[in-house]
């Protein structure tokens, strides 16, 4: 693996030159500008008697799912832009003809796309948290949980798109991953609300569907835990919504499965790349 730093920097240089990362940063900056407008207006004209943590909860609750949609889209586009593009353009054969192993190429190029995904997302979510703090001061529920879950969430998104984009065409992979992410988030949210009505057959069915989606595509659990970690602790609204279990982290077992799935997807992707015919 002594060529790993070189391959990482080669891949990063190529990725940066293609302006994909820059575009993602520009869109994120636009999103953050709008969010700053929202927060500053809330700060100026907030409801009388409302705590800033409640306003922060409201702002974050409205914003984080939209940011997650952006962030996952960036992850799928950036994650599928490196290795598949190198293979389709024939450049992968050029790299593979050098005295390096396929594993080094996979790791070096893969890490650069993962780093790009994480950088853009960190800018977006870090910006959201920073702006919220500046306008509507509050205390997060758990910063370590938020950071851990952030990394886990991206590990699942990146590993799944990397694997799929090596198996099918890049656009098909993006559509499948985006659909899986959307469905798992939707079912995950429904399942949390449905748990508030135990015994109902429809609610049971929704909880079961949520459980299945958590197994098939375990990105939602990590995202939900990140949101839980970022939301204000002790907000009045938090207590009001707690009956539905809407603001809680995912069980440790589900997070463990998400981590295992990310590792599994990565191993399968590496094996696929190692056996791919290049050029």
């Amino acid at each position: 693996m002594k060529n790993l730093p070189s391959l990482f920097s080669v891949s990063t240089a190529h990725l940066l030159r293609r302006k994909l990362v820059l575009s993602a940063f520009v869109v994120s900056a636009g999103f953050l500008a709008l969010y700053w407008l929202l927060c500053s207006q809330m700060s100026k004209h907030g409801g009388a008697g409302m705590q800033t943590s409640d306003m922060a909860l409201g702002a974050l609750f409205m914003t984080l799912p939209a940011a997650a949609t952006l962030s996952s889209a960036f992850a799928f586009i950036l994650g599928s832009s490196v290795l598949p593009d190198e293979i389709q353009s024939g450049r992968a054969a050029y790299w593979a003809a050098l005295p390096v192993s396929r594993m080094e190429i996979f790791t070096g190029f893969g890490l650069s796309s993962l780093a790009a995904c994480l950088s853009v997302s960190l800018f977006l979510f870090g910006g959201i948290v920073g702006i919220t703090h500046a306008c509507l001061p509050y205390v997060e529920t758990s910063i370590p949980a938020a950071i851990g879950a952030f990394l886990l969430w991206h590990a699942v998104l990146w590993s799944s798109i990397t694997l799929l984009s090596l198996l099918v065409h890049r656009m098909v992979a993006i559509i499948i991953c985006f659909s899986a992410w959307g469905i798992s988030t939707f079912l995950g949210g429904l399942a949390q609300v449905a748990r508030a009505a135990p015994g109902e057959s429809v609610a049971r069915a929704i909880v079961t569907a949520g459980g299945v989606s958590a197994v098939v595509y375990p990105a939602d659990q990590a995202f939900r835990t990140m949101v839980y970690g970022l939301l204000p602790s002790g907000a009045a609204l938090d207590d009001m919504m707690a009956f539905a279990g809407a603001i809680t982290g995912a069980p440790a077992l589900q997070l463990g499965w998400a981590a295992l799935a990310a590792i599994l997807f990565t191993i399968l992707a590496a094996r696929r790349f190692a056996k791919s015919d290049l050029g």
Partner: protein
Amino acid sequence: MQALPALEVYGVSKRYGRLQALHPLDLIIPRGAVFALLGSNGAGKTTFMKAVLGLVSADSGRAVINGVEHARPASRRGVRYFPETVRFGSWATPEFMHSQIERIRRESTREDLLSRATQLGCADLLGRPFGRMSHGQTRRAALAIATSGRPSMLFLDEPSNGLDPEGRILVRELLRQMAASGTTIVINSHLLGEVEAVCSMAAFLCRGRVVASGSLDTLLRYKGSARIESPMAGALAERLSGSGYEAASTGPVVTVPLPEGRTFAALTAEVAGSGIPFTLIELARENLEELFLRLVHSDEEGSG
């Protein structure tokens, strides 16, 4: 002690779906050889190169490059590959790509690249993005990257493809020079005249099988005629015609079919005794094109 062959291939085969692109194939290429892979389109030449370099996974067999199993990355140390299609990013310049590649292979310097680019007549292109080059310019610049420094072995897939006549001459000269300095060269090309000009050995592939291989000297058959080069070719042809030969001259060359019962030695004596100056007399052999067609047709007849 005998030097290790540059390339040893044992039973390498490759199938794409239903198509057997390469049947189990054995080949040994000596160090320093300029080896041509010849065959029709789809014969398996490119697949062979890719299988040897590990770019496609062979279904069976093994290859050894410079004494190292091809599965090991170290086997590609000092080995360069020039693919048939080069698709660098349109924004990338040859200098940038060379610097990126050299971060990994660490085998040549910027000065080596400049020297090679100068030799190939493309030094002015080193700072220009590939997106602003013609196909031929891209090929020249990419070839300069692939051959910079002192590689021990070159795999070239259609190196002259898309080059103008001047470019082809420069490539031919480059290959001659590299071969003279000890680089083993494996060329896949359809330009048989060029192959004949630079290669010492060849293998003919037909539908994934090697139908003939060896040195060009042994592969090219002698034809039943002699070829004489003379500054007075017309006079010599006339003289030989008077002696019962059906001699014909074209420029400085006289071609003489050997009639039944007359030997090459007798013809040589006749020419020497004529008093007409000549610079060369040899038994005419088929050229690479004729050999190619003979082998392809005999393979088609054999399979038909």
